[in-house]
């Protein structure tokens, strides 16, 4: 049944997402891909919607994916699913974690996990770029076949402008998203 599948999938996503936010994206993407709950461009839109609406991105995407897969109840089930691991783990951990926080083994495990999270978030950027800045999946064969034609220049321009606005001028992300939406309407 789809509700049980949503619940189990989002418990799994909640359980294995370290670092929060964008680190969850590759995980959610992998899972929804295997069930065909959303297309990859619809998935990219969740990230944008999550940025302009309040609340944690994990909850936003759980609600969105659940709704798309099975309506309001689906959204509710997915949201509960993604919250369950936090509730259970924190309730257990809050009793005795403080003593172990600086334990050397714990520190070393996170020394290894943290760069993995960086890599995971980087792959999220690549998969969104495939639907926005490039006209096809990024692979050697598509580069050889299409050459410069695989680049969507409008998308590339908006990407570069957004990057400069965010890093150089510290523009608020919500403003950047609104501006790029307007640019999209004017250009495409």
């Amino acid at each position: 049944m789809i509700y049980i599948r949503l619940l189990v999938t989002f418990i799994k996503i909640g359980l294995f997402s370290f670092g929060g936010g964008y680190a969850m994206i590759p995980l959610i993407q992998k899972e929804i891909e295997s069930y065909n709950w959303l297309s990859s461009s619809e998935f990219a839109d969740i990230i944008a919607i999550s940025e302009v609406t309040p609340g944690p991105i994990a909850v936003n995407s759980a609600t969105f994916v659940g709704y798309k897969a099975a309506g309001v109840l689906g959204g509710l089930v997915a949201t509960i699913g993604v919250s369950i691991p936090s509730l259970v783990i924190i309730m257990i951990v809050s009793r005795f974690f403080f003593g172990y926080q600086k334990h050397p083994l714990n520190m070393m495990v996170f020394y290894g996990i943290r760069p993995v999270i960086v890599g995971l978030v980087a792959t999220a950027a690549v998969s969104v770029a495939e639907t926005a800045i490039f006209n096809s999946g990024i692979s050697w064969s598509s580069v050889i076949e299409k050459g410069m034609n695989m680049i969507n220049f409008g998308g590339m321009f908006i990407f570069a402008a957004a990057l400069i606005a965010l890093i150089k001028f510290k523009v608020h992300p919500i403003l950047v998203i609104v501006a790029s939406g307007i640019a999209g309407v004017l250009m495409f």
Partner: protein
Amino acid sequence: MKSKSDIRTLAEIFCVFFKIGCFTFGGGYAMIPLIEREIVNNKKWIKEEEIVDIFAVSQAVPGAIAINSSTFVGYKIAGYKGSLAATMGVVLPSFGIITIIAAFLSAFQENPVVQAAFMGIRSAVVALILVAVIRMTQTSVKDILTALIAFLTVILILVLNIHPVITIVLGGLVGVVIFAFFPEKSKRIMKGANENHDIY
């Protein structure tokens, strides 16, 4: 507060976290200063030193940082019931808003103007994620080994199509191996981490 788990306290916890859930844009990290202001400064439910530890733990264990820290703060104030009240409060606003948007978007998805807007927005999202990568690199990639781990993760996921969970487990194992077999290196890493006052 007389009884820490009475209905009034729970309702208050729910309301405070509902408010926090309504006003945080951009995910878990954006929520941290808001929780601090409401819980430590306004309500004085938790001390400043404690909240720093709570954020550290929230980032160290699995799950969304926002949900983790809300659960934790709720638990500290009023036990199990408190953590349920806090989590429900923080999740409800985004659940409501997204449900409305998802319903609305389904109706307008075929609209060419909406499609063009999202085409532009997606390009900006790539930039947003890249900025997050840069920010995370500064605290997580500190030497050649961690740089290599980050690079290999990208290769494993994109080229070999490995499941993300496996890469997380592998990363943790690298840490365990260094701890078990290279005590000198492990000591150096931990010394560096302590000097930088890392919270993970």
